[in-house]
């Protein structure tokens, strides 16, 4: 194994709605913040990995460079559904791991505005299938995934709703979150039902956002100083292997379980060693599944975990202290990098009111439906 790769700079813009700005301008804002955080300039950067989903054909990475310095470096544009940002990050990680570059910039950016329901496009000619052959909208797809857990273990609507209460509470302490409001249990459960068991407050928020990271080889990281550096102990990407109900029910579990096993092996640690987790809570139901998929508890214990507050700030293993996709927001291509910003901020001891005390190891997880799963394990370097 070659030398480790380090995050030497990382930041994000506050997620929100910025109709007056373009995708490259949002990406450039995050890029400048990350470069400043690393104490380097665009002239030090040897390659750019750019993640964006909705303008995947529009050379977003090059257009970001037009905003921050067109140095002629190689640019790789990347789209991988909601795993887009993490996949771009992994591209940069691999390039450094391979010894090709010493300093790489990664940007994840998305402009969703108030885009409504995602998914369910169907296609294939004829008449629309939505509402005739079930539903392809994301709240329903993840509703069904949650009901699979309910079927196996008796997980309740209330337990799913508690995820949303927790993550909204966490977001009140995060100045970069889209929403920062408490949502008590009755409010979550009585919110407009979108697709049972997911109410409106149990669905992630479509927002605009950008996050960026500067990755460095071990040599370069030592040169820049390790005091705030974050070691990338594992970077894993999986796709979904064929499973029994694959054709009608996207499987977000198997690819996550496989990625988690690989990530723990690569990092040489286990779920018990984690101090915090940022996982893909695109819907409240999804977070429950991933407690077990990531090994934060045994199969069938996820409901107890949320009931007993083990995944809340101050609990045994805090999950989504940023507010998660449910409240911080889910700008698809930016989400994966923003998760790493959150974990890095805790490892650096700079998370303010929401700081997980003594955090040394954290895990980030995203799922792109279709499916892709990316997991990264990050560790305090010094």
């Amino acid at each position: 194994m070659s030398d480790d790769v380090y995050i030497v700079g990382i930041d994000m813009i506050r997620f929100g709605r910025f109709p007056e700005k373009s995708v490259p301008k949002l990406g450039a804002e995050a890029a400048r913040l990350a470069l400043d955080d690393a104490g380097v300039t665009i002239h030090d950067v040897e390659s750019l990995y750019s993640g964006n989903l909705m303008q995947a054909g529009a050379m977003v990475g090059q257009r970001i460079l037009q905003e921050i310095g067109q140095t002629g470096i190689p640019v790789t544009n990347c789209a991988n559904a909601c795993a887009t940002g993490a996949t771009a990050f992994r591209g940069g990680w691999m390039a450094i791991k391979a010894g090709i570059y010493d300093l790489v910039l990664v940007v994840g950016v998305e402009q969703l505005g108030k885009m409504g329901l995602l998914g369910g496009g169907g296609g294939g000619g004829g008449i629309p299938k939505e509402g005739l052959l079930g539903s392809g909208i994301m709240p329903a797809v993840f509703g069904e995934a949650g009901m699979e857990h309910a079927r196996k273990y008796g997980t309740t609507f209330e337990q799913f709703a508690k995820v949303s209460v927790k993550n909204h509470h966490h977001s009140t302490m995060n100045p970069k979150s889209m929403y920062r409001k408490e949502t008590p249990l009755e409010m979550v459960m009585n919110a407009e039902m979108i697709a049972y068991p997911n109410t409106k407050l149990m669905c992630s928020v479509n927002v605009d956002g950008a996050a960026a990271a500067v990755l460095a080889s071990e040599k370069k990281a030592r040169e820049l100083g390790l005091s705030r550096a974050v070691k990338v102990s594992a970077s894993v990407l999986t796709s979904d292997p064929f499973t029994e109900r694959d054709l009608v029910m996207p499987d977000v579990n198997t690819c996550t379980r496989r990625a988690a096993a690989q990530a723990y092996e690569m990092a040489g640690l286990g779920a018990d060693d984690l101090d915090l987790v940022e996982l893909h809570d695109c819907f409240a139901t999804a977070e429950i599944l991933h407690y077990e998929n990531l090994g934060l508890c045994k199969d069938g214990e996820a409901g107890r975990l949320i009931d007993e507050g083990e995944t809340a700030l101050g609990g045994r293993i805090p999950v989504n202290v940023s507010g998660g996709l449910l409240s911080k927001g889910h700008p698809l291509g930016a989400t994966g990098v923003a998760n790493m910003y959150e974990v890095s901020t805790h490892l650096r001891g700079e998370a303010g009111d929401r700081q997980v005390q003594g955090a040394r190891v954290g895990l980030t997880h995203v799922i792109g439906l279709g499916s892709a799963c990316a997991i990264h394990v990050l560790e305090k370097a010094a």
Partner: protein
Amino acid sequence: MAEEAAASGPRPIVPYLKIPESGDPYLEAHKCRQCGAFFLGERETCSSCGTSGELEAVKLSNRGELYVYSIVHRSFPGVQVPFVSAVVDLEGGGTVKGNLINIDPDPEKVRMGMPVEVIYQIAPTKDREGNEYLTYYFQPRS
């Protein structure tokens, strides 16, 4: 083209709904002779085991049980809500998704594991050219 042959009657909403010239409509899967995996629609290679040329058409059962569901209250404009989006495991193999009808769209009423059957009806919408489509639904089975 199958569409032209069936031009006098409704068209199938999906290619895996088959409308024979005589006899009842049915759902068709392709089953891998090597590993037994089921697929909806034709394919050359089994995506479960990777074997090519070993997929055979099989008629799916009209009886099954409700695996999981979601009750959809908000969907795209023009889609009638609420409705029950259901994933159904069919007897003998194969899983299909569709609307579960003839039941209250209420989590107190819809029960995972309940026996259901596949029924075939003309879809309430036509395409731009005015063609009718045959679709399938699930309904509770006693």
